[in-house]
């Protein structure tokens, strides 16, 4: 077992009786050990995953194993797993143990996936470089001096470095797609409401999506089809049927592919990335697809709209971390107000505090209409504009990021500079439409470049087919 890249590798090993699940887990545990310096894992469930592997090996022998038998999954530290810690890489949840398992995770467990550990991320999923973790930054495996992106940096690197088969992440404004692009892996943000959020620690509820990192499209499609669908514990989740994405991954016939011409003309985007997109468009044209420039005048409003709304929601979502019921509580409080202030000041990181304050500000009575109400209106306009483009075209192609992976410490002095890393990912988040980031080559420094393919609501099947047919490495 020199390397395992995908679930089909694992299945072959198991079916050929060349390896057991236990062997697979041992393989990953060794890799994790060898790559400690990447700081991808916050906690490794070594014993437990071996134990579970042995049980699944028995099930395989008895012919009773589920569809994900042998798959080893890492989870971002924002998913609840019964009797396990969940901290969102924050000190404020120190010592907290979840009493239940997230719906999405439970569905994977029911198909005999093995959870190998909790993955590092930006604190409360707030960040674009994984430098906001209370447990230190994650390093990009392609270049250890560079960030893996964020907030699901640990998840991206875990797949990039082959520390697990797939990893779960959450994407609020690009937290899956951006690190996927920086780390040369596949990452999907499904349609908002496609996957239950029950058991996903909330950041900005009307944006948060559960998604998947994988080394290839097939694994990604399989995991999503198992996780997605209605859930009685999340009233916001869609009841529409979930297609078997992994069954048919081939795109047939000509597609109408849109791209935003302002992006290729304007500044602010790394030249290599522009060229990368242009050559992909050229390739598609040659393959017989219709490639159409479109205009998206509201694109420049997507980022401010996004930051107003997500800070508003997160300021409220994070109110529960108050030191009263669980997690960290300051030791030297004089009275309740003092306890709140000290607990939250001591245990939340700087970026989290900044967003709580921003969110509280935009929701305050005097500024509510100027910020929150207006941003909601703009959100509706952006949504309408996106739907219009995606009704007239099959896909919208965009870069995932304005630059390739930047250096650790390069942008963390100026938050606004960091927020620009989300420039191209927030649009799909604001609109709630599905988008996938696929590896699409390298820049002059040999750093990975991702390509973003966006489709209309609930068109994950089409996304997977198109991406697999034209942007698959195998």
């Amino acid at each position, binding site marked *: 077992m020199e390397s395992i890249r995908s679930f089909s590798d694992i299945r072959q090993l198991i079916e050929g009786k060349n390896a057991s699940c236990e062997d697979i887990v041992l393989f990953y545990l060794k890799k994790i050990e060898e790559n400690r310096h990447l700081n991808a894992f916050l906690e490794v469930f070594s014993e437990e995953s071996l134990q579970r592997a042995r049980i699944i090996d028995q099930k395989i022998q008895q012919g009773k194993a589920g569809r994900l038998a042998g798959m080893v999954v890492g989870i971002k530290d924002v*998913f*609840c797993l019964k009797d396990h810690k*969940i901290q*969102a890489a924050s000190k404020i*949840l120190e010592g*907290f143990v*979840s*009493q*239940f398992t*997230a719906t999405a995770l439970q569905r994977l467990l029911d198909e005999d996936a093995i959870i190998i550990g909790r993955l590092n991320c930006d604190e409360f999923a707030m960040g674009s470089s994984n430098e906001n973790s209370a447990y230190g930054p994650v390093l990009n495996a392609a270049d250890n001096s560079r960030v893996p992106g964020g907030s699901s940096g640990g998840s991206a690197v875990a797949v990039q470095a082959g520390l697990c088969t797939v990893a779960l992440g959450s994407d609020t404004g690009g937290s899956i797609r951006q690190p996927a692009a920086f780390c040369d892996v596949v990452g999907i943000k499904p349609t908002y409401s496609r996957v239950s*959020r*029950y*058991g*996903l*620690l*909330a950041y*900005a*509820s*009307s944006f948060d999506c559960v998604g998947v990192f994988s080394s290839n499209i097939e694994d990604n499609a399989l995991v999503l089809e198992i996780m997605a669908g209605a859930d*009685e*514990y*999340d*009233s*916001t989740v869609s009841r529409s049927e979930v297609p078997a994405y992994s069954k048919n991954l081939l795109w047939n016939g000509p597609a109408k592919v849109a791209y935003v011409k302002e992006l290729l003309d304007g500044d602010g985007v790394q030249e290599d990335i522009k060229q990368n997109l242009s050559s992909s468009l050229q390739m598609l044209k040659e393959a017989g697809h219709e490639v159409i420039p479109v205009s998206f005048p509201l694109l420049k409003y997507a980022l401010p709209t996004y930051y107003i709304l997500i800070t*508003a*929601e997160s*300021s*409220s979502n*994070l*109110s*529960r971390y*108050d030191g*009263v*019921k*669980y997690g960290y509580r300051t030791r030297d409080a004089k009275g*309740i107000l003092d306890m*709140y202030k000290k607990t939250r000041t001591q245990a939340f990181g700087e970026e989290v505090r900044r967003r709580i304050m921003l969110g*509280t500000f935009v*929701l*305050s*009575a005097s500024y*509510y209409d100027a910020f*929150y109400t207006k941003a909601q209106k703009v959100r509706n306009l952006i949504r309408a504009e996106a739907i219009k483009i995606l009704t007239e075209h099959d896909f919208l192609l965009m870069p995932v990021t304005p630059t390739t992976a930047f250096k650790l410490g390069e942008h963390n002095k100026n938050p606004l500079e960091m927020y620009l890393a989300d420039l191209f990912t927030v649009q799909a988040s604001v609109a709630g439409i599905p988008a996938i980031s696929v590896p699409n080559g390298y820049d002059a420094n040999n750093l990975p470049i991702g390509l973003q393919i966006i489709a209309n609501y609930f068109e994950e099947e089409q996304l997977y087919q198109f991406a697999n047919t034209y942007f698959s490495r195998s």
Partner: protein
Amino acid sequence: MESLQSMNYELVVGLEVHAQLSTQSKIYASDATIFGCEPNTNIGVITLAHPGTMPKLNKKVIEYAIKMGLACGCEITRYNIFCRKNYFYPDLPKGYQLTQDKTPICMGGGIRVNGQHGEEIYVRLNRIHVEEDAGKSLHPEGKAYTQVDLNRAGVPLIEIVTEPDIRHSADAATVLTEVRKIVRFLGICDGNMEEGSMRCDANVSVRPIGSDVYGKKVELKNMNSIKQVRQAIDHEVSRQLKLISEGKTIVSETRTFDPVTGASFSMREKEDLNDYRYFPEPDLSPVRVTEEWLEAIKKSMPELPDTLKRRFLNEFGLSEADASFLSDSRDVASYYQELVSFTKNYKAAANWVMGPLQTLANEKGLSFSDIELKPGKLAELINFIDEGKITYTMAYQQVFPVMLEKQNISVASIAKDLNLVIESNTDALKTLIQQIACKYPDKVKEYRKGKKGLLGMFMGELMKETKGKADPKIATNLLKEVLEETS
């Protein structure tokens, strides 16, 4: 002392009534809602606001709220968006209360009552919305800490907000009594103010009569009974009038009523109130009230006190007082209604319910639904009296107690066993004959003088009284006996 009359002022009151809904489980979680459990026993992960939890709406809550809305003639909102009301407090686990803001489930409508002088008053409702209750903070005396009990956190509430249409403290009490009557009738809340399952805040202001602007409003809290609401308003009126007469200004504030002294003290001024930063709850889908659902709820509605009273007045010809009494509680009303389905003597039925049955209920501490005597059985007795087989006094004093003991024996056989049935009961017949004799003193004299043929006439009278049920042989003997002995 200043009074409203002496200063030519009027009182303006609006009420905010919180009613805890008597659903089995909480509004957004499956935890139980039972009152009086050990602290922190009905608290699952949703109630505790653990990370990753989301609200799971209990549809019964919406149904109960709609029932209240229909009872008050409100417009029912078809698309309900829930909102977060954000503030920090130890007994508020999420750091926000999940409530309704811009789309309350019920809008408009009103409560109709009779004012203190009997005049009809209609108090408009501004809204009724659903929300979750908070937990309880307990401050043990002499301790430097606070304890939090989250059993109550997430218990469903409706908040009923009236317009400032009330002009007398007595009317405020009447409106509150009516609200309690309705929620109890609907079976959506037990209306127990002492246990806090119904709570009332009063917004009180005064203004010169004829003015069309409202005075500065003071919110009164912490009244634990309807009587206290009235007391608190009266006290507040005096306080405000005194301030005005002294040339001082009234501050918009929240004041807590002290049940011991009857006075109130200031909690906080409105100016430094929280900014609650309401926004639509993204973790809960808006709830659509479909036509079918609404129709089903309408069908399940019981007849309400007001409608019942009207029907009792018009259909059964009862007096105002009787109709009020019988429509006051759902148990009594349904007992009465079942009773009159077995007898046409509506007035007698009313008297039985308000008299012997109410006495029984009071003595035994029973509610009407717990009374074992079936209305059909009681109707048998009423009809028995109407048929002249037994007198009311006998029925009440002798048959009724036996009926309460023995459910399966017919009224006729009880009466027979007790030898009470008129036709064979010599005492009863004798009484009747004596009454007849008194009615016709001349005929009695004639009979005694020897005109024995008059016996037939007396027999006729007796048969008329007993509807022909008297045993002729016994009757003849008794007649002779009585007529003879009067001499």
